[in-house]
């Protein structure tokens, strides 16, 4: 088996850790929260970063009228299927060993990734803007949307939004498949 094929297969297999490792994390820091509150986002669920975090974020957010964090989302059903399909597809492409298929896979996952991020943005927008009109505390004109990626001040909190271990491994995998394409080009020309 060629080096490019191994890269392609291993790269696409690196999507699988997403089933056990979190993809993304949003955390909230404030002086009275010396240990930041955090949500770990998996492809199947949202989970406490530390025990009780989701409940505590919900409690804080209810004062300004934000919704509770969802326990169920259609994305949590869809994401695992997409990941499984893409992994299988990647492995098959790897065995076939065609560099055009490598590139196709890379572009496809890129498009899916963009759709995913857009979907995430839409959810974040709704989460931060769709407020209960009976909220106890109102700051006219203030939205509580967490950043898509990066850090943002929201009232007394500093909100961070960054990939986590599963996400980083996925990115490494994806770039290995791009590498597979370039290595394959070299192998063919050589």
């Amino acid at each position, binding site marked *: 088996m060629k080096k490019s094929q191994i890269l392609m297969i291993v790269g696409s297999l690196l999507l699988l850790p997403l089933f056990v490792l979190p993809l993304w994390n949003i955390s909230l820091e404030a002086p009275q929260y010396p*240990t930041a509150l955090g949500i770990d986002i998996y492809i199947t669920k949202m989970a406490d970063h530390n*025990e*009780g975090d989701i*409940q*505590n974020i919900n*409690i804080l957010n209810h*004062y300004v009228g934000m919704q509770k964090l969802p326990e169920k989302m259609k994305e949590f059903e869809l994401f695992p299927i997409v990941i499984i399909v893409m992994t299988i597809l990647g492995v098959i492409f790897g065995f076939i060993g065609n560099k055009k298929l490598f590139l196709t896979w890379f572009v496809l996952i890129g498009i899916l990734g963009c759709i995913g991020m857009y979907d995430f943005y839409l959810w974040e927008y709704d989460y931060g803007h769709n407020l209960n009109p009976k909220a*106890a*505390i109102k700051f006219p004109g203030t939205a509580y949307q967490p950043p898509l990626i990066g850090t943002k001040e929201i009232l007394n909190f500093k909100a961070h939004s960054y990939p986590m271990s599963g996400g980083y491994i996925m990115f490494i995998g994806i770039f290995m498949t791009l590498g597979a394409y370039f290595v394959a080009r070299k192998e063919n020309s050589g």
Partner: protein
Amino acid sequence: MRNSYKYVALSLLLAAAFIFSSCQQSGSNNSGALSSSAAERSFVPPGEHDEFYAFVSGGFSGQLAVYGLPSGRLFKVIPVFSVDAEKAWGFNEETKAMLQTSHGFIPWGDSHHPDISQTKGKLDGRWVFINENNTPRIARISLSTFETDEIIEIPNSAGNHSSSFVTENTEYVVAGTRFSVPIPQRDMSIADYKGNFKGALSFIKVDPKNGHMNIEFQVLMPGFDYDLSHPGRGKSHGWFFFSTYNTEEANTLMEVNASQNDKDFIAAVNWKKAEEYIKAGKFKTMPANYAHNIYDESTHTATTTMKKEVRVLDSSELPGLVYFMPTPKSPHGCDVDPSGEYIVGSGKLAAALTVHSFSKMEKAIADKNFSGEAYGIPILSFDATLAGTVEQPGLGPLHTEFDGKGNAYTTFFISSEVVKWKLGTWEVVDRKPTYYSVGHLMIPGGNSREPYGKYVVAMNKITKDRYLPTGPEVTQSAQLYDISGEKMELILDFPTIGEPHYAAGCPADLIKPNSKKFYRLEDNNHPYATKSESKTKVVREGRDVHIYMTMIRSHFAPDNIEGIKVGDRVYFHVTNLEQDYDVPHGISMIGANTSELLIMPGQTETFVWQPTKVGVWPFYCTDFCSALHQEMQGYVRVSPRNSNIKLSWTLDGE
């Protein structure tokens, strides 16, 4: 002899020196160029943690106070033997059982000597034990929840003073009686004390898994007063040493009549031998009646079991179980050095400190080098066990602790000072005044094989003019000395609660990581727990009404209740649904004849309210929990007895 008056004057001069110039003080000590100011060494910057925990006896408050060292900051007062309205200890339905005894519910106690559990002779930071002197009891406090988990009453005991010290693997926590009494208790003439009263030394087995205590056996002793005790360790592991006074067996005007003998004893009890006798069936099972109270962390509820018998070993009939080592003048402290070789007896009316040698004691026993016997117990020859004497160290020696570097530190009540001396050479190295009349002293781990000899805390009996006055009753206090150098240096005075009889110190790192943050709601097995708002309800059972209530930032559920009638007994079973660190909620009801509840996240507690007046009565959260804490309130409508208003409960009209 040192002129003690001159010395007192010198002490006062030194005190003045402390007040006016701390530089002068550190300059007078040989701690070299590295010496920094006292304030700097006890200063813990805002936001930083202390190096040690100190668990300081609350004395006649009945409680145990938690301090940080070297800052002397008070963190928590753990209710143990006395009711505490702030924490509902002894007021809520869950903890009333903790203060049950064979004499019924007792709302107060006199706490004395805390001691931290040990493994292999080293502090393990799992539990702290403390004794109640007045109605003899031993408590075990969890160092994960910092709450009292267990209290066991001690039968056949009175003035539970030579307690609660642990053996080096926490095999036993030991409780000795200060006052001898008729055993079993009976109606008899006090004048017949001599020969008829007895003292009981209790060996309480500690379950290594959960800490549960059980009186394994008692050693029945002659009718002396058993004042203090300490375990053997290392080579002397398996022995326990008790100081005695009133070997005269006087029963009146004790200050004179119990001070006649030139020497009293340190009783050496061979508890390994006692275990053999127990195994061989050489015990008597005596009928008894004593309370064993256990607080269950999962139901947040205490239960009382009355125990009905105790196994007793008679020291006068069982050879090899107990030996007496003559020790001058009513010894008080009885302290064992980290190696287990030296047993220091502080004859409180003596001018010298007596130190016994464990290996000499063993030899004297083997050689039957006895000078007599008392009630069948051999008295070892004084010279045969004597390791040495610290001559003229001060006046009124009480207690000794060790720094693990070959030095001992003894407090002197009358001359009001701490004296540092060397084990083996018995020479006095340094002395520093205390303010005033020091009792116990504590070096973290000072009662173990491995003391952390950086600080000594001296606990004073009186403070007089030392702090801002607060009327006739002034503060209690402790003083912190840096003992890392050759000379001791006073670096801090700090007030304490109650009378600080003794303290136990422990490196913070041994305890801090295990400190619980909150109770997990899913582990809450309280029979009246309500784990979500949807499960809240109000149930009437005749005149008893049970309210299953929850609390979460920032409301109660339900918060409007109707259908209660005058003469009902209303049980508020309140569950804090929070699962966050440091978010307790409180609840109190107008006119309730009890305390507030202060409920930790995940916990359920219950108070009872018996409304006497028709009306609409509010309740509210007593702990400022959140931005909308002031809105955390509710109403109960109380109708006349004959009213037909149906029971109803709502939150937000639902």
